[in-house]
């Protein structure tokens, strides 16, 4: 069942909003985003990457740490703090990629909105600085959150 495509918009220079409809109640979606065993089954990135480290302290003030590894043994890590933990409605966390040496932090607010048994997951990503944004860009796999400019697809289609 197709539950709706990914949307990526940029309400401001430092902000990106990613939304995706998932065909399950918000409690279940929330669990998939906060339980290491479940996270390791889907948050894997491109083919060939695994997630050997996945720690998530499910509480306000808790820490999390993710490490992805590709077939060549190259690691990419990210850590952060859970700022707000409100089951099953909202998580706010900060995150920094290991590759980002600028000291910049990114804050991500994940909202879980349920309607008719489906959940819209809306993630608002706010970069603390241009340096932080560039650090995220340089890190490759998840880099380039700013890539999804609204209507860019349409524009590029027109230009093609």
């Amino acid at each position: 069942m197709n539950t709706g495509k990914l949307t990526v918009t940029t309400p401001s220079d430092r902000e990106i909003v990613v939304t995706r409809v998932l065909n399950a109640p918000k409690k279940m979606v929330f669990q998939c985003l906060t339980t290491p065993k479940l996270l390791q089954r889907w948050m894997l990135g491109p083919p060939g990457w695994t997630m050997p480290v996945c720690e998530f302290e499910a509480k306000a003030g808790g820490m999390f740490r993710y490490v992805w590894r590709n077939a060549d043994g190259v690691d990419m890590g990210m850590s952060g703090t859970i700022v707000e933990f409100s089951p099953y409605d909202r998580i706010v966390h900060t995150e920094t990629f290991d590759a980002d040496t600028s000291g910049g932090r990114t804050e991500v607010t994940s909202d879980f909105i349920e309607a008719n048994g489906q959940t819209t997951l809306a993630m608002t990503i706010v970069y603390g600085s241009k340096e932080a944004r560039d650090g995220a860009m340089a890190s490759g796999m998840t880099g380039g959150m700013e890539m999804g400019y609204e209507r860019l697809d349409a524009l590029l289609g027109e230009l093609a």
Partner: protein
Amino acid sequence: MLSTQLDATFSALADPTRRAILARLALGEASVMELAAPFAMSQPAISKHLKVLEKAGLVSRGRDAQRRPVKALAEPLAEATKWMETYRETLEMNFSRLDDLLEELKAEDAAKTARKTPKGETQ
């Protein structure tokens, strides 16, 4: 550096007027006056946007001193699209695995409920 080029490209594309200018230029080159016509903007304001696009390597200006026609350049856009596609694909791959996982969890839940509530029994 590649990321610097991409940064310039996407900063330039972050503005709706500049995107509209590029969409217009996709139809062919145009003078600043022609570009300004559909917008409620002065020519100097349009020139400012063109400078950003030019700096990002998305447009070039002709040498004709009178008209200096503006032309769209495709290469940085192609680079940016490729990168954005990779990013979207990565996100969508994650979400489609999450779709599968959620279906599996729902099936497990349904099986548990069925065991707890045998057929014919009401809750």
